[in-house]
């Protein structure tokens, strides 16, 4: 098993974990973390699946991962700001999603 395949399999595993958390968890911060894990898995698959170019790594997927990380950071920040706002508004300790909306 060559190293890139390890990355791919680990990335797929992270995708599974992220999707699981996204579906099952109710706590908003946990769900946010689930989405983050999902994105990490995707980036790992990107790196692992990147082609080996003569004389060095393939630059395109690396640049894509950088871009993807910034997007994920922005989305996480927006999500956390929203969560904090919901927390302020409800004035209670729980930040769980409730019921069918």
């Amino acid at each position, binding site marked *: 098993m060559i190293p890139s395949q390890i990355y791919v399999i680990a990335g797929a595993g992270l995708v599974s974990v992220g999707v699981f958390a996204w579906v099952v968890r109710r706590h908003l911060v946990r769900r946010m973390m689930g989405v983050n894990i999902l994105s990490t898995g995707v980036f790992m698959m990107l790196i*692992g699946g990147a082609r080996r170019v003569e004389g060095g790594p393939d630059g395109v997927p690396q640049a894509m991962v950088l871009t993807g990380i910034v997007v994920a950071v922005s*989305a996480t920040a927006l999500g956390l700001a929203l969560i904090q706002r919901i927390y302020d508004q409800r004035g209670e300790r729980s930040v769980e999603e409730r019921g069918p909306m």
Partner: protein
Amino acid sequence: MRTRHIFEYGVALASLGLGGLVAAGALRRRSLEPAAGDVVQGLLEQSGVSSVVTAVLLNFRAYDTMLEVVVLVVAFWGAWSLHPTEARVHWRPSDPILMRTVGGMLPVLWLLGIYLLWAGTSRPGGEFASGAVLGACGVLTLLIGERVPATQFRPARKVVVVVGVVVFMVAGVAGALSAQGGSEVWSYTAGEARGWILAIEVAGAATIAFVLLGLFSGGREGLDVESGGGEAP
């Protein structure tokens, strides 16, 4: 409780199924025709920088990178539009160890950030790494209860948020004007490219650092701890 467990096991199985599907797809034998990466490698001479990643980020796929700064700006505006009525976290620089450690680290971090910016053209580094480090500097500064320089001037804040995108666009227009055939944006020669890329990197790092700092403060009024009021950037 049993239903809950069944549900969770089911979802876990299904998630694994999805992961398995994706992994099975990705592990198939790949055709090894020339990829975009090879093409980029071949064109590296014309891009004006020697680092492949920086060349891709700031020249070949500069449009993506500009949009990525736009994503940051959107998230920043989105977070700041939420206008919490009061900051719930009280910031007390109570911890002497924190103050001492951070106080010692900050100048080094500043230097590191600026070095990363400079190194970006030839080595790993560049505006994102630099911006992240500089943003972290700002966050640490806030944590020990100090002000981040220049952030209490509203016009300055407004300009810093948009400058990363604006310089990108200026570079694009300049490229379009100087292009030989056609007028595609960002199409400058290798000689001009280097200067523009440097300008984009400096402006981009400033925007990224400031936006990250702003996102950390999460739309609480003012970036500095003491002053409560003030308008959004």
